[in-house]
């Protein structure tokens, strides 16, 4: 436990000094705010773009607050995922690659504590960033668009957060398996996109797949009734995370350095 705290403190310090604690939450906040703001000012934006024929008027049916929140989650699923993966991809492989792990693992340290600290720091960064961004989106939607149903928004947000946790865990697993940063990013983002697309194409086979979490949370916001499979997908997602963690901890143990 003491070693876990030591490792965790070091990870937090590293993320602070490399400004990850600044730019990742900021990007998430920006992503969250963009959707309601753009939606609100869409008529004005179109008008000022200036190439409409004279006299033509556009009437855009204003979307509901929940719909805008659902679109925000769509933003996170593209740019947000990429930012998340890029910010944590070298968390494990970086130390192995640079050689600093040689000094760390020559000491009597626990590999599980080491991996757990990586996971804990990743989860805190992801959670803080997403909560900030989602809260920002919610606030601006309430101000500019209209009411959002609280229960649905909270549940959708939690499910979506679970999906981000899953992607983060997948990235850390890749980071423990592969060395090149580009490879880690490519495989993690690719797998996340594939999983979430597969649940669109083959809904019958992927009912409980973690990849269906983004769709479930979007549906929750739009329909406001509990979509089928939410509970199952959440449980399976958590199990996958534990499984990924165990593989990564084992990988850390057998591949301590690059010699």
């Amino acid at each position, binding site marked *: 436990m*003491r*070693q876990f705290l*030591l490792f965790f403190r*070091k990870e937090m*310090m*590293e993320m602070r*000094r*490399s400004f990850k604690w600044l730019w990742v939450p900021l990007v998430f906040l920006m992503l969250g705010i963009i959707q309601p703001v753009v939606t609100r000012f869409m008529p004005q934006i179109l008008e000022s773009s200036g190439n409409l024929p004279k006299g033509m008027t556009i009437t855009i049916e204003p979307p509901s607050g929940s719909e805008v929140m659902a679109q925000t989650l769509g933003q996170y699923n593209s740019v947000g995922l990429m930012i998340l993966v890029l910010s944590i991809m070298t968390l494990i492989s970086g130390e192995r690659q*640079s*050689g*600093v792990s*040689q*000094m*760390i*693992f*020559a*000491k*009597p*340290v626990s590999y599980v504590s080491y991996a757990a600290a990586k996971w804990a720091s990743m989860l805190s960064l992801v959670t803080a960033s997403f909560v900030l961004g989602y809260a920002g989106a919610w606030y601006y939607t309430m101000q500019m668009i209209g009411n959002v149903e609280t229960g649905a928004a909270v549940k959708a947000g939690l499910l979506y957060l679970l999906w981000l946790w899953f992607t983060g865990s997948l990235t850390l697993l890749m980071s423990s398996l592969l060395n090149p940063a580009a490879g880690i990013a490519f495989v993690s983002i690719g797998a996340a996109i594939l999983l979430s697309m597969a649940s669109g194409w083959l809904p019958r086979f992927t009912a409980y797949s973690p990849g269906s979490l983004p769709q479930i949370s979007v549906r929750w916001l739009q329909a406001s009734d509990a979509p089928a499979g939410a509970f199952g997908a959440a449980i399976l997602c958590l199990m996958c995370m534990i499984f990924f963690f165990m593989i990564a901890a084992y990988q850390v143990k*057998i591949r*301590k*350095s690059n*010699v």
Partner: protein
Amino acid sequence: MTRTLLQVRELSKRFKEREVVKGISFNITEGSCAALLGPNGAGKTTTISMLAGLLQPSGGSIELLVNGSPTTDRRPYIGFLPQMPVFYPWMTGVEFLLYAGELAGLTSREVKSETGEWLEAVGLREAGKRRIGSYSGGMKQRLGLAQALIHRPKLLILDEPVSALDPTGRKDVLTLLQRIRRETTVLFSTHVLHDAEEICDEIIMIRNGDIALQGSLDHVRRTYSEPVIRLEVGGDEASRSWLTAACGKDFVIHSEVSGGRAKMKVANVEQASRALMADAVSHRIMIRSLEAGHSTLEDLFLKVVQA
């Protein structure tokens, strides 16, 4: 008191098809300083990494005996400095030592006093407050030594501690090692023979993953050193041709000539040098220098490596 501290038996490592370390065995006694010698690619770093617990051996055993009984986990008793120590550039020297000390299991109070002490010992008291990113190679090596020693290990393992340093850095680290070896058993790998001769008392020479030769430095010197004459003459044509002719004399067992210098292995140094000098005088050849002595560790190393 000569108790065995480290016992290595038939240690081997295979990477896919290539066997890098081929079943080597050796002991290291408590309080000694052993050098692992060998050319580049002989398997030094692989051996050291296995001893430090970073690589899983393919076969054989490594046992660390603390107070005479083997330990299951030897990491608490080992301090390790890798070949090119890499740190977190965003940490300061002090922060890294605190981190390393606590990872090694010291309490936070112990680690504070030890950090101050070791920073002082390696001469980084002032630089300790700066980020490691701004350190020079020599400073990193010294910080690496401090982090390896902070938990007072029984055995200090160093991989090429001075190979990458400039002469001043080398001298600093060697002086530190001289001091450390009074308290700790040291094992280090190097291909700089001069360093090994300077501080160690035991050598293990490996070649292609096999032990070519091992023993105490004195024993190796006594057993393997050969009588050698080093001779230097003037650069003119007559001297040169005389030197070549001299190398062909019957008392010369083996010789190497380069320019105006020759190294001759002989059976009896005294007789041979007398004969050489007399011959030179009769041919009116100027001898610039003549050294009658024994082959050095470097000669032995070259012989072992090229054999």
